Each structure stands twice: as C-alpha cells, then as structure tokens.
C-alpha cells in the first residue's frame, strides 16, 4: 500500500529536486503512515483535554453539592460549558472509528426524554412517541416500570446509570452523559423560541426544608454519580488512544493499512460535516422550526457545540489541535498529503473549511452578542429570516466541504466511504 501511495508523489519530488537540495525534500515528504499516526496523536490530546475538563466539572459539582449556592451552581455551569469545547471537537473521531461510535451514546446521546431523569412540566414536554420511559422520573422513584418490567433504582450509582441507558429499547432514554448533566444543572428550557434557557433553582440541590421540587437527596446523588461516570468513560477513551499501550484501539488502527486509516479519517470528517452537523443538527431544526431538535437545548449552548464540531473537522485536515492550556499539537496533516497529490484541491478544501468556520463563528457571535443576542433556538423560529440565513449559510459551506472531501478521498486512493457495516448486512 505505501508503495502505491508514493508512486504519484515521486513525480512532484523529481520536479522539485531541481530547486531544492535533495535532503530537504526527503524530510518534507509526508507519508500516509505519518498522517494516520498523527491523527491518533490528535485524538489522544483531544480526549485528554476532554478528560481534564470533565474532572474540573466533577470537582465543581462536588463543590456545588457541598455548598449549594447560586455561585457554586454557576461555577458548575461554567465548567460544563468549558468541557464541551474539547468534547465537541472530538466528535470528528466518532463516525470513522467504531470504538468511539459504540461508546459515545453513554456520553453525548441526544435528543433525550429528560422526564426519565427528573421532573418536567407536562404542557411543554414533548417526548418520543411510544417511549414508556419518557416520564419514569428516576429521581422521584425508587422503582420504575418500563416496557412491562419493574426496575429497582433505589441505589443511584455510576454503574446503575450506565445500565439504564436505552431502557425499554428507546434511544431517547438517556440516563447519563453531558446532556443529562446539562439538564440537571439548567433544567427544562420553557421559553420555546423566545430568549432564555433552563431556570433550575439551586434549591433543587439543597437539603431538608430548603429542598424544592422534592427528592433533593436523590437528585444530588444522581448528579454526583453521573459526573463520576463521565470521568470514568473519558479515562477509558484516553487509554484507547494512548501511545505504546498493548491491545488498545490506537494499536489496532495503526496495524490497519494506510488506506484504511485514511478512510476512517475521511469518513468521520464527511459524516460529521454533512449528515450529522449540516443535516440532523441544523437543517432538521431549521426546516421543521423545531426547538425539540436543538442540540444543547437546556443551556442554549448549541452555537458552541456546532462551532467546535466544525473546528474538530478542520483540526484533522490541518493536523493541528489547540489544547485547552493554549499549547498547540502539530504534525503531518491530511492537507500536506493531499497537496502532494493535488495542490489545487488542497487549497480549495482549506478555503472551504475557513469559510465554514467563518459561518459557524457568525452564528456564535450572534448568539453571544452583548445586545439582543440571538440563540440558536431563536434563529430557528418561523419567520426569522436573519436566523435562517445564518444557519443556511453554514449548511451550504458544510455541504461544499463535504463535496471536496469526497474528491480528496478519490485523490488519496480511498475508494469506499461507507461506514463499517458490521451487523447491518443481510
């Protein structure tokens, strides 16, 4: 495989050798093998940041539970917002790598029927049709009945919450992960298309007579357990990408052919660009005017979730990841590799990704504006022309970059952009 990859770059090297000393060229030539190795390094750094940020979130939640005040609740919310920055960038690793896709449901499943976790206001709560777990309310009940089966949930532990995901066979039954924590910190967003997000009072976490909405002890236990589980899950994923670790996913990936490594990279980038971000997370919400389809609906942080998804895609292309501490991880990139095959396409894709980031930034700026901010759930309101234009522009740039990713795959000799279909073939 590497031999095939080198055949065409050689022509470029011959042409360039007239202009440069030979040694410099040999050093500069990027191999597919090096690009895939660096991809694993990027994943490792990105998940390590996600873990660090989740550990901070877990500490802030412990402080909130030790001393529930408006300040400690706010500090926990800020830590949650911060934790989304690395995690959303890491979603580019999801679709290409089954190890991530099979695991991520416990961390980032969405949309969720939050009535399974805690109290909700009935009138404005629309759960998945036919989901018996949608109003189970684990916090208020030591036993819940879903799908004709009664479960003992008197002990709320990280293991218990992991087991409760998708009970009754519905993907909307999400007991754990970022969005479960988001719901516990913010509460239901009852503002529809209007300004404002969830308004959970801190007294929901107070003890004794100060407790509001009942069952504060169980709510506190739940929040503690669910944030512990997030840290455990991220530790596992960091280990999967760690260098020189016997039998982890990184070794498995690097043992595959270079073509397979590139396929997983490109499949993850294209699937997140088109089907997931442009489609599920933006177009459905916009065309259906549906705030039920808003990604971070409790906190109204959707603009950042989308922005950092886009950033994650660009990271893989440029081989660059800026860590939370400001340091930068750099190395042989897909862009370098593509430029050796087709410089024009490499430049086009680079410009398209810049354009995508500019459009996603416009959404972020509108949502975070000092005066009259327009959050994502306001942008998707019927008749909001400015909002729909902001979103449509981002969709169009994502569609454009996906087209070039397909071409890039062709240039790099990746002939199939289909996902692993284990278990889905007849």
């Amino acid at each position, binding site marked *: 495989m590497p031999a095939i990859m080198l055949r065409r770059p050689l022509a470029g090297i011959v042409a360039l050798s007239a202009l440069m000393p030979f040694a410099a060229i040999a050093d500069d030539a990027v191999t597919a093998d090096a690009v895939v190795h660096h991809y694993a390094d990027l994943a490792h750094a990105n998940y390590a940041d996600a873990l660090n940020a989740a550990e901070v979130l877990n500490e802030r939640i412990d402080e909130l539970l030790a001393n529930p005040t408006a300040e400690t609740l706010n500090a926990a919310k800020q830590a949650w917002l911060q934790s989304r920055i690395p995690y959303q960038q890491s979603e580019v690793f999801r679709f290409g790598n089954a190890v991530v896709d099979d695991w991520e449901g416990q961390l980032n499943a969405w*949309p969720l029927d939050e009535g399974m976790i805690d109290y909700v206001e009935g009138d404005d709560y*629309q759960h998945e*049709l036919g989901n018996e777990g949608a109003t189970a309310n684990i916090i208020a009940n030591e036993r819940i009945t879903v799908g004709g089966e009664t479960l003992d949930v008197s002990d709320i532990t990280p293991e218990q919450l992991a087991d409760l995901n998708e009970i009754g066979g519905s993907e909307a039954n999400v007991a754990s992960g970022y969005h479960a924590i988001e719901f516990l910190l913010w509460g239901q967003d009852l503002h529809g298309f209007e300004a404002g997000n969830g308004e959970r009072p801190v007294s929901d976490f107070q003890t004794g007579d100060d407790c509001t909405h009942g069952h504060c002890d169980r709510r506190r236990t739940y929040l503690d357990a669910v944030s512990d589980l997030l840290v455990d899950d991220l530790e596992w994923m960091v280990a999967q990408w760690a260098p020189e670790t016997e039998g982890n996913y990184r070794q498995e990936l690097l043992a595959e052919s270079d073509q397979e490594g590139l396929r997983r990279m490109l499949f993850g980038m294209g699937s997140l660009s088109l089907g997931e971000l442009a489609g599920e997370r933006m177009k459905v919400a916009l065309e259906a005017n549906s705030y039920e389809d808003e990604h971070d609906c409790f906190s109204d942080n959707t603009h950042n979730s989308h922005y950092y998804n886009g950033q994650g895609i660009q990271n893989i292309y440029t081989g660059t990841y800026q860590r939370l501490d400001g340091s930068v991880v750099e190395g042989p990139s897909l862009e370098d590799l593509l430029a050796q095959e087709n410089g024009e396409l490499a430049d086009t894709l680079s410009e398209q990704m810049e354009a995508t980031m500019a459009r996603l930034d416009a959404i972020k700026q509108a949502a975070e504006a000092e005066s009259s901010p327009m959050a994502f759930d306001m942008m998707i309101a019927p008749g909001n022309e400015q909002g729909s234009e902001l979103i449509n522009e981002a969709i169009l740039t994502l569609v454009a970059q996906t087209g070039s990713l397909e071409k890039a795959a062709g240039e790099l000799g990746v002939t199939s952009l289909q*996902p692993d279909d284990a278990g889905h073939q007849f």
Partner: protein
Amino acid sequence: MIASLRRLGLLACALLAAPLSLGMETTTPRDMWFGAVEQQYAELSAASERLEASAARFCQAPDEAHKQRLEDDWLSAYQAWQAVRFIQFGPVEQNSRGWQLQFWPDRKNLVGRKVSGWLKAPDAPDVQAIANDSVAIQGFPALEYLLYDDAMDEQVLSDPAVCDLMQSITTHLADTTSALHRDWQAFGEHYRNTPRYTETTLASAIQALELLEEKRLGDPMGLQGTSANGYLAEAWRSGHSVRLVESTLEGLRTGFLPGLSALLREADAVALAEAFRDQLNDALAQASELQPGLVPSLEDEEAFRGLQSLYLNISQLRHLLGNEIAAELGLVRGFNSSDGD
C-alpha cells in the same frame, strides 16, 4: 385562487418547453429514467390537485361521501409521492421539498404539535402562512392528523377554521408538487447530458432501499437494536404504513427498473437485471398480501412473520443493488445526508 392561477401560468410555460427526447435515435438509461420520473411527478401533481379539489368539495358539503372521497384522494396522492420518493436529488432538494411533502421520521410528534398549534390559533393560516411555517405543517402527515388523529374526535373537520387550515395545506401541497414537476422537466436536459447523474440515480435508489429497510420497516419492527415501536412507522395514524411501502416498490418497478435494465444490458450483465426484477416482484407480491397497517402486525405473531418476509425481501433487494450491481457497475458512493446517526 392566486396559487391556482400561478400554477396555470407555469403549466403553460411547461407546455412550451421542449418535450421528451422522442426524436433522438438512441435512448440512454438516463433518458429512460428521466421520462419515467417525469410521468411520476406528473401523476403526483395531478393527484395533489385532485386532493385539493376534494378538500374544497368536502368543505362545501361535508357529508360522508365527500369525506370518503377526501380520504381516498389523500391516500392516492400520498402513494404517488411514495412512488417517486426514490429520487432524492435535483428539484426535490430545493427548499427541502421532500420534507415539505413528508416530514419523517417524526419521533417527537412535531406534526401533532404544529397542527394542534394552528387549531388553537384565532385565525386559520392562509397558503402563504403555511409556506412560511415548519415543513411539519406542510405535508401529507399534517393532513393525516386532520383526517385521522384521535384528537380530532373533539374537533370537527368540517368546522370552517379546521377546513380553512386543511385547504391551505392542500393548496400549498398542490403548488409544491406542480412546481416540482415543472422543475424536473426543466432539469431534463442537464440530467440527460451529465454522465455522473447515472451514479447519482443509482446511489439515490440504493439510499431509498436502505431507508425502506432500516427506517420504514426495521425501526418500527424493532429490528435495528431497539424495541418495536409502532409510532416510528409512517402513516401510523391512518394505518397505511405497508401500503406506502408497496407504493415505493411499485414506483421503483415503473420508474427505476427500465433504466437500470438498460444500463445493465450495456454492461453485459443481463442476469443481474433479471435478478433485480425478480426480487422486486417478490417483494411487491409479499407487500400486496399484507394488511395495510404495520402496527397491528406487531401484536400478532403470524402477521409479524408476513412483515418479516417483506423485510427480508427488501434486504435482499437492497443487497442486490447496493452490493452486487453497484460492484458490477463500479459505483463509488460518497457521503449522503443520512450518514451520522
């Protein structure tokens, strides 16, 4: 009224446009696909106009006969859409027209929320208000809610406000399908002259079969890793889920198979064309034997076995097209809008 006049004007333009390539000496697979799909869009547009007229008649004289006619016309227009639903590129992509006709899957009952929202509004929306609103209010599922949802026991369909809402939706639907038909005609030259549309058409049909297998049957039947849930079926309110599947298969037979057979003949792979035709006929025969709804079969073992047979037939059909035929023709599939979760 304004909307109807607009359609007449467009029809006149369409008649002036160049007709099908009848004069051409050779008929390519893309010519065949273009012509067959043109007829399917024409039928969708005509059926939508019949539905619009039927809604108007019912609202003027809301009796049982007119109600029955309205339900029949709703179903036949919905089926006409299913027949051509395998075309997921070209004019149907503009303004999310596919979703305008059928917003689905609708796990969170957005259709119900949008319709009940308008039913509570002081004034019924006009066509323009429907055009500006959510795709969930614009299509066949919204009309199905008005015709069949349990909540409509408390609302009378013939109530002027309800009738106005229904007529705005049927007029908008007729406008959309008319524009879709006209735009397909205008798209014809580009489609026929652009070789890569051969791959696009094949990929679109494969995707339609995947949707049929995984989402339209597999999800509600509980065959995709989660449990059975009848609300995930299309047309669960009216109990016509299987009839809609049948219409898609029939649409593939009339709209897709002839062009595919020609393409495979060119590639010297007639056996694959025959295998696809036979498998499609088997699936159609199986679908026609089943009861119209999907939900009742979830509770009845024997009926469920019949549904499983249909699912297997469609799986084999998808495998044949997506694997064997695609490999024979060297089809390289790129990303599609259903990647992701």
